[in-house]
């Protein structure tokens, strides 16, 4: 596509406005387009800089899921309070995910892949300093990533980095990754919230000093209570961050969190109570916003265990469930319907052409008949550890499916140890997935034959062939075709009833400048609220 200089200039100034292009880069490119320096300066001040971020102020975040057991150890980050502190404020990744879910340069300035996408070369940004004044080197990066690898590792990112065969330095600012197999999405893997860069040799309790390269340096940290960060004046991104200070306050109770926002003790909160959020919306000092990302609720069936080993039984159950009713009653409409495949509508290769499975007791009966059954008795294990409302959902399942001759016995189990004793163990249970940034990561985490978290024990040969092929494919159109077909296979043959994608419902002070595009990968603008927002 060829743009007139005027269009190009407009695009450039929009980029400056969105903070994706620095002022200096704008001037250089504008002059290259044949505009005089003076005119370019004028364009900036009139259009783009109208949205200039304001520097300063204190942002207080009311974060859920705070626990006195939280640490700033990247290997054991588990929920918003510690992820926002560690990944959102103190440290950085080699690769960042921008608000459009695309990988963009972070501590790595650029990267390229070999033709088989099995060897990746990353160029480090030069002169980046840790909070303690030490300059970041390749050794820091290699040590930070190796921390998650190897036998001894107890990191939750262990299986993400297992694909790496070798990491080595090539000179002072180049790192080469040799993968066991090609992976076109490898840069996205490096953007995972665990794969943060810290000074070489940091281990154990040292992590709680919070030394990193991030936009804020650690002032105060009390696990489960609060974290306070101060603007890092040497942050590598020019003009960022915007706040002088950011405090993360752990408030686990949703009513308390809401009251704290209403009374101005925090400026932004997540996980609003959907039952009362309409009351919050009436408050003119508060802006409520929702983002539907990759979070989804599922009910995985073991496809190798009777009766779920018959695809007709699986289909009967998929038809026997009223997804709309669940979305309306459990999530009060804050979300989207799921269609038995895990690729969210916001993702790059989401297949919009698969017809939505609707509640249809007659179809369910028909499929039962195909399986040679007139009625079906099954157990469904549920606890609210899976997701808030999981037990209620199971009871809804029971009632809806009974109209199709499927008798679901809801087995209420203990919340303690749910992920260990129930999930992956029981033939049918309730489950939650936060989702993954790429199609490949989602599928290879939970749907690839033999994967650790393949909670349906599904092993579809065509699906697995496509998964491996798509991983190495660089041609976007071919990849799209493959992922489309994989979603169809999941929908038709897979063992997971994926009934809803859940929205993140969040609220912030009306005086905070909310970007036009809010990231959908995590709550709190992809946990980057401290870097991307400002006081208007």
């Amino acid at each position, binding site marked *: 596509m060829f743009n007139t200089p005027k269009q190009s200039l407009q695009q450039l100034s929009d980029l400056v406005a969105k903070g994706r292009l620095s002022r200096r880069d704008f001037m250089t490119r504008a002059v290259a387009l044949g505009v005089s320096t003076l005119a370019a300066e004028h364009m900036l001040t009139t259009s783009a800089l109208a949205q200039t971020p304001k520097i300063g102020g204190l942002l207080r975040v009311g974060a859920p899921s705070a626990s006195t*057991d939280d640490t700033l150890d990247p290997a054991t980050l588990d929920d918003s309070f510690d992820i926002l502190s560690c990944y959102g404020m103190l440290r950085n990744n080699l690769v960042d995910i921008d608000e459009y879910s695309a990988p963009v340069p972070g501590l790595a300035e650029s990267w390229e892949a070999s033709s088989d996408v099995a060897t990746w070369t990353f160029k480090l940004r030069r002169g980046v300093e840790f909070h303690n004044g030490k300059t970041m080197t390749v050794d820091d990066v290699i040590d930070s990533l190796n921390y998650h690898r190897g036998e001894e590792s107890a990191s939750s990112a262990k299986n993400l980095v297992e694909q790496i065969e070798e990491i080595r330095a090539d000179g002072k600012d180049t790192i080469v990754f040799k993968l066991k197999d090609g992976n076109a999405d490898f840069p996205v893997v490096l953007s995972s919230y665990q794969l943060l860069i810290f000074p070489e040799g940091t281990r154990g309790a040292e992590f709680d000093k919070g030394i990193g390269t991030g936009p804020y340096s650690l002032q105060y940290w009390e696990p489960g209570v609060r974290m306070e960060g101060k603007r890092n004046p040497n942050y590598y991104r020019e003009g960022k961050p915007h706040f002088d200070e950011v405090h993360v306050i752990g408030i686990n109770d949703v009513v308390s969190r809401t009251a704290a926002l209403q009374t101005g003790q925090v400026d932004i909160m997540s996980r609003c109570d959907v039952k009362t959020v309409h009351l919050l919306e009436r408050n003119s000092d508060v802006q409520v916003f929702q983002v539907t990302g990759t979070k989804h609720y599922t009910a995985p069936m073991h496809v190798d265990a009777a009766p779920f080993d018959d695809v007709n039984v699986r289909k009967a159950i998929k038809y026997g469930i009223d997804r709309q009713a669940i979305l309306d009653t459990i999530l009060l409409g804050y979300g989207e319907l799921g269609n038995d495949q895990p690729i969210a509508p916001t993702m790059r290769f989401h297949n919009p052409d698969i017809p939505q499975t609707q509640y249809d007791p007659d179809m369910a009966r028909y499929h039962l008949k195909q399986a040679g059954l007139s009625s079906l008795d099954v157990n469904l294990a549920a606890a609210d550890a899976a997701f808030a409302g999981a037990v209620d959902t199971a009871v809804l399942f029971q009632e809806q499916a009974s109209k199709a001759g499927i008798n679901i016995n809801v087995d209420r189990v203990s919340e303690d140890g749910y992920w260990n004793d129930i999930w992956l163990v029981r033939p049918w249970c309730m489950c939650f997935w936060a989702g993954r940034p790429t199609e490949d990561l989602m599928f290879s985490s939970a749907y690839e034959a033999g994967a650790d978290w393949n909670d349906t024990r599904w092993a579809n040969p065509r699906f697995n062939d496509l998964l491996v092929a798509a991983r190495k494919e660089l041609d976007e159109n071919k990849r799209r075709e493959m992922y489309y077909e994989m979603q169809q296979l999941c929908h038709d043959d897979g063992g997971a009833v994926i009934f809803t994608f859940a929205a993140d419902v969040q609220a912030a002070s009306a005086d905070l400048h909310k970007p036009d595009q809010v990231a959908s990968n995590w709550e709190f603008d992809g946990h980057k609220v401290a870097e991307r927002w400002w006081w208007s």
Partner: protein
Amino acid sequence: MIRLFVMVGERLLFGAITLLAVSIIIASSVDLLPGDVATAILGQAATPETVAALRKQLGLDLPFYQRYWEWLWDFLRGDMGVSLTNERPVAPQVGERFANTLLLAALAAAIAVPLSLALGILAAIYRGGWFDKLISSSTLAAISMPEFLVGYIVIAIFAVELGWFPSISTLRHDISFLERIYVMLLPCITLALVVMAHMMRLTRAAIINLLASPYIEMARLKGVGTARLIVYHALPNALSPIITVIVLNLAYLIVGVVVVEVVFVYPGLGQLLVDSVSARNLPVVQASCLIFAGTYVTLNLLADIFSSLANPRLRHPR
């Protein structure tokens, strides 16, 4: 007096045995719960390899009695160990939280105890009247509501509507004592509302009981005024049961307030204990439980000492 010292000595000994028994019960029940620290930390992200690696790092692959013995040995030498989840030493962590809890309990008691004594006495004096009925029914209502609901109502009125106090009591490290009291007032009011009914009703009942006795009748016939009658003649004899109920409520204020801590985001020991149990973080669970058990033992002992001191028949045995 000697008898009192013997009793205290005996009770301290039994207290120590109780604590030892508590520690064994705690350790074995945490062990019996499904899952352990490794699975709690890793949650849904657990794989068999990572769980095994973490168990090894934390020494969870050792048998139960060995882990308990090592903990006990360290504990007896004054070392509470380090938290399994964040590798911080347990003693300062628990100590700071316990100080917060004590402060909250003390402040709540400072509001609740004088108020419930005064209201109890007034209700006894005006028994059967509208004042008595009002006080009795409103304190009953407060005790019948779940604590979190009382907390939410207090927040809705004093923080959201009136804006007098902050709705959360999260403490900053550099906060002054007065500010600290200020941010803690709402949880204190909530706790006071919750514990007042018990103390107030017992005070009222004990005094009414005494007011019917012959010596009070005698004093009244001799022309003693109502105030003097209650404070000098009735109250000293009612003190014994009142002290017991006050001390039991103090114990409750220290060990039973986790719900209020959560609602007001107050970093007390209860919250730490709940988090640690869900993470199966045994050293912290042990330390917190022993503090709680110790509090109960000590306060019960104090209740007995004070009620014997308040009882002349026990002080001057014939």
